[in-house]
């Protein structure tokens, strides 16, 4: 655990250093940018497809905006970009005060057309106030449009977007993968009862046993069995999402665990499980700590903040680590387009490979840390006595 913290810190520092380095380029892109068209010889790195798309979007204004490209990738989207100009439209589900709206995001034609639904007319627009940033489509918000073509902010505020976005779809894919893999493994256990594990079963069993023996048992104690389903699910959910996020081509590439909403829910689960299972000594530690009575004024708020800050740290740690990894990889790829030179490509690709390998480690590490800290907090809540 100590080691992982050290490594966590190092990775963060590395990420910060890289981000600073790359920020230099994003601040002065116009100085370095030339008006040549962007090279097409970068197809060997699939992430470049995203970048190229963004570059083309930027090309209309004569320069390449890496921030837009990167943020577009990091953020969620109503379509799932596959390659070039081909992308899957995803279902849009809107809650409006008049009722639900279901339609395909394909109706927006990449933000160029409004869609007239049952209750309102909708338009995909850039979420930022500055409409002039670019025409990139991916992180646009659905807004209500009045009949005369103006955006109706009041009506927009009243609708809620429950669309199956790129991240939701990627998450469903993870859910399906996990269900298929683990039900297969479970049936292998049933079939080969009492025998040694084989194939996928023998690949996953050490990880399951690792979660049990090195995460759950030492942190929770004898009552670890109750929490194993949550710990295992959260571990494999984060791990598979992290790994799929690293895959630059179609079914992967979504930044699911790098989205604050996902990590928020995962941390919320930890928060709920910890506090639902908190025993007498856990609550008395919060509301009747072993200090003089007059200190309660300070201690109780501190303890209550402590209860909330632990899952908050879980949420931010996972989100920041994964997002930072994606930003670095995309920034390195963007270098090629910023310099508008193929000569920089080998350097970029070398750095990207290095970062990808590092991210592979981080994918495991963050799944491990999230599970470990969840187990630790659960252990603190169910501990018998101090």
């Amino acid at each position, binding site marked *: 655990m100590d080691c992982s913290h050290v490594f966590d810190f190092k990775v963060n520092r590395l990420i910060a250093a890289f981000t600073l380095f790359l920020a230099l380029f994003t601040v002065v892109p116009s100085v370095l940018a030339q008006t040549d068209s962007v090279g097409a010889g970068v197809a060997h790195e699939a992430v470049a497809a995203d970048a190229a798309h963004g570059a083309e979007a930027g090309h209309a204004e004569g320069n390449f905006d890496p921030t837009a490209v990167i943020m577009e990738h990091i953020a969620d989207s109503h379509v799932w970009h596959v390659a070039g100009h081909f992308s899957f439209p995803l279902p849009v589900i809107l809650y409006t005060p008049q009722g639900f709206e279901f339609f395909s995001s394909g109706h927006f034609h990449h933000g160029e057309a409004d869609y007239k639904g049952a209750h309102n007319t909708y338009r995909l627009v850039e979420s*930022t106030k500055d409409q002039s940033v670019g025409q990139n489509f991916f992180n646009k918000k659905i807004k209500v449009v009045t009949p005369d073509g103006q955006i109706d902010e009041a009506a927009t505020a009243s609708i809620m977007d429950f669309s199956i976005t790129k991240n939701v779809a990627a998450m469903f894919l993870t859910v399906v993968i996990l269900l298929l893999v683990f039900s297969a493994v479970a049936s292998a256990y049933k079939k080969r009862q009492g025998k040694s594990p084989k194939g996928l079963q023998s690949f996953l069993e050490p990880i399951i046993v690792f979660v049990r023996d090195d995460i759950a048992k030492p942190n929770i104690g004898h009552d670890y069995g109750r929490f*194993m*389903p949550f710990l295992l699910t959260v571990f494999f959910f984060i791990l598979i999402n992290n790994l799929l996020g690293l895959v630059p081509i179609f079914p992967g590439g979504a930044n699911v665990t790098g989205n604050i*909403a996902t990590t*928020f829910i995962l941390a919320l689960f930890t928060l709920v499980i910890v506090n639902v299972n908190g025993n007498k000594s856990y609550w008395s530690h919060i509301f009747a700590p072993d200090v003089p009575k007059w200190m309660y004024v300070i201690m109780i708020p501190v303890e209550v903040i402590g209860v909330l800050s632990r899952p908050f740290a879980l949420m931010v740690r996972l989100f920041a680590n994964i997002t930072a990894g994606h930003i670095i990889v995309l920034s390195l790829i963007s270098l090629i387009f910023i310099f508008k030179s193929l000569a920089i490509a080998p350097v970029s690709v070398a750095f990207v490979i290095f970062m990808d390998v590092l991210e592979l480690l981080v994918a495991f590490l963050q799944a491990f840390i999230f599970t470990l800290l969840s187990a630790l907090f659960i252990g603190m809540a169910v501990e018998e006595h101090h």
Partner: protein
Amino acid sequence: MELVTPSIGLVFWTLIAFLFLLLLLRKLAWKPIMGAIHDREQYIDEALNKAELAKKEMARLTAQNEDLMLQARAERDVILKEAKALKDGILNEAKAQAQAEGDKMLEKAKIEIANQKKAALAEMKAQVSTLSIEIAERVLRGQLQDKAKQQELVAGLLKDVELN
């Protein structure tokens, strides 16, 4: 700022998806997998324990065998010793008995011989006395055929008496 603002849609779907995944995996996967791993571990532990016990039992049996062997050897020695003592005893007794028997027979023989000797001597004496008497009778008869000679004898006898 948009980056750190969770969108309601993703929050909702993550909640649904994760809850669904958690419940389904708990039922479909984690329970059977953890159960199977636990059972197998217990089985292995049990098997190892049993092997350990068997080893101990084996060692115990070996030790017991050795003990038995030693005991048997000691018993054999004792028996042999006893047998030897018995044999010696019997031999000695037999010897002593034989000796005694021999002695007794010798004694008997001696007594017999002595008796026979006595008897022979007695018979010889009797014969000798008979013979002597016969001789004396014949001599007397011969001598007593005439008066003179009788007289002489009586005189001779009387002379002997006188001397006394």
